[in-house]
């Protein structure tokens, strides 16, 4: 009895006194992941090794964020809170929660990264790998078409195989320069092709040998995840068609 109370007290005390800092760490971790998608445009800094202060500084100065609903409309903080994400900022949107909702009710974060007069749009996507969920951020250039960078992460993919989507930076670097719309403005996304994609094809990248399921998962995640942003993209750039396939 005494022991239970004592133990509970100690844990409660520790947990509550460190909660703020833990939350802050989590936020920095997320911001770092978002910045990893535009890592070639951070002015030579590596999002993996830069300090927490640098992450906060870049994120605070160069990034604006907004939350979108499935019709491509920007929604306010209260609506984000109502959707179940404490804090109400786009970065507070928990994609894991969103993935469980019916498609029509989902909301999506959009981050706009500005650097030297150029704008990059960072989209958040989430899907399924082989063992568990995978997720990532894809940065588009200001034409809303060309990929400026992508970063992926996973819950439990096999190290050395599926986990390469995160660990092998040269694999993720393949996405740079790929296009998600064809010349007519139809949405085609980017496929991950087993056995290697033709270098001339701007809508496909190479798969990972030994990790076909994870690689296919990435392809499917991109196809479905980027489509959620089409209504908004169509609104700001009407050369991009709102294809509903």
């Amino acid at each position, binding site marked *: 009895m005494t022991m*239970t109370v004592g*133990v509970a007290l*100690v844990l409660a005390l*520790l947990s509550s006194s*460190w909660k703020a800092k833990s939350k802050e*760490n*989590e936020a*920095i*971790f997320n911001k770092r992941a978002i910045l990893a998608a535009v890592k070639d445009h951070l002015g030579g800094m590596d999002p993996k090794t830069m300090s927490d202060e640098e992450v906060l500084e870049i994120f605070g100065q160069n990034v604006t964020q907004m939350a979108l609903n499935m019709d491509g409309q920007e929604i306010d903080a209260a609506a984000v809170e109502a959707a179940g994400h404490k804090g109400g900022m786009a970065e507070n949107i928990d994609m894991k929660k969103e993935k469980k909702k019916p498609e029509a009710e989902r909301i999506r974060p959009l981050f706009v990264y500005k650097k030297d007069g150029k704008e990059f749009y960072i989209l958040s996507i989430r899907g399924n790998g082989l063992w568990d969920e995978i997720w990532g951020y894809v940065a588009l250039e200001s034409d809303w078409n060309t990929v400026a960078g992508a970063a992926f992460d996973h819950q439990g993919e096999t190290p050395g195989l599926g986990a390469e989507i995160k660990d092998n930076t040269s694999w993720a670097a393949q996405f740079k320069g790929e296009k998600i719309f064809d010349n007519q403005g139809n949405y085609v996304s980017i496929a991950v092709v087993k056995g290697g994609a033709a270098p001339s094809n701007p809508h496909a990248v190479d798969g990972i040998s*030994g990790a076909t399921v994870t690689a296919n998962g990435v392809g499917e995640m991109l196809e479905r995840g980027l489509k959620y942003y089409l209504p908004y993209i169509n609104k700001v750039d009407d050369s991009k068609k709102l294809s509903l396939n």
Partner: protein
Amino acid sequence: MAENTIQESAAPEKENIVLDPQVVEKKEREPLFGKAERKLLTDPLSDNNPVTVQVLGVCSALAVTSVVYPSMVMAVAVVFVCAFSNLFTSIIRNHIPKQVRMIVQLVIIATLVTIVELTLKRFSYPVYKELSVYIGLIITNCIVMGRLEAYAMANKPWRSFLDGLGNGIGYGLILVVVAFIREVTGKGTLFAGSGIEIKIIGPSTEYAINTVATSGIGTWFSWYSNNNLMVLPAAAMFIIGIYIWIQRSINPKLVDIS
């Protein structure tokens, strides 16, 4: 996990009989750091190593050892949990009813593990992310429970603390050795994920030995590529197996002839 549960139920009894003569040993006046105490610390490092001799805690040893840095954090966490759960259990050992002793032990272990988890979340969030599941699984790590049952329930606090410390370090030692071999041969790096990452060998200019270089030392290693098997948990099984083989060749008294 399945493997863990089986070991948990089977191992402590076996240990009680075979591996721990100290359990029955009792002295009136004990020196703070006498021969017996030193033995408690050093025995688990080699002759009574929890992983290679008692074959406990293999599950997490396979899972977290693909790179050195998280393994070191894991090792420190287990040393902490093992030492202090032994200490606290030993302090209250005479007040624990026999029937519920496992539950009491679990409360102590779970508390310490939660403290470790909170500490990591507070001070090293990326490592917490990397290890998250396995930190929680320290609760089921048979080394911790095994030492409580086999030693702390029957010995005085100071000695129990040393025993926990020794066993934690014994486990951590294997973890770091295995992780070192796996990271260097599997990834060509050392301490990846920490602030002092060293890139040793690999196909780009970032590495000390650049296997695709056109001049210098790298040209001698143009045949080299990382061993992808080493990244997989199965490699840890092989390394631990070879470690056990070498250890028993050197020290034949460890070989169980029965």
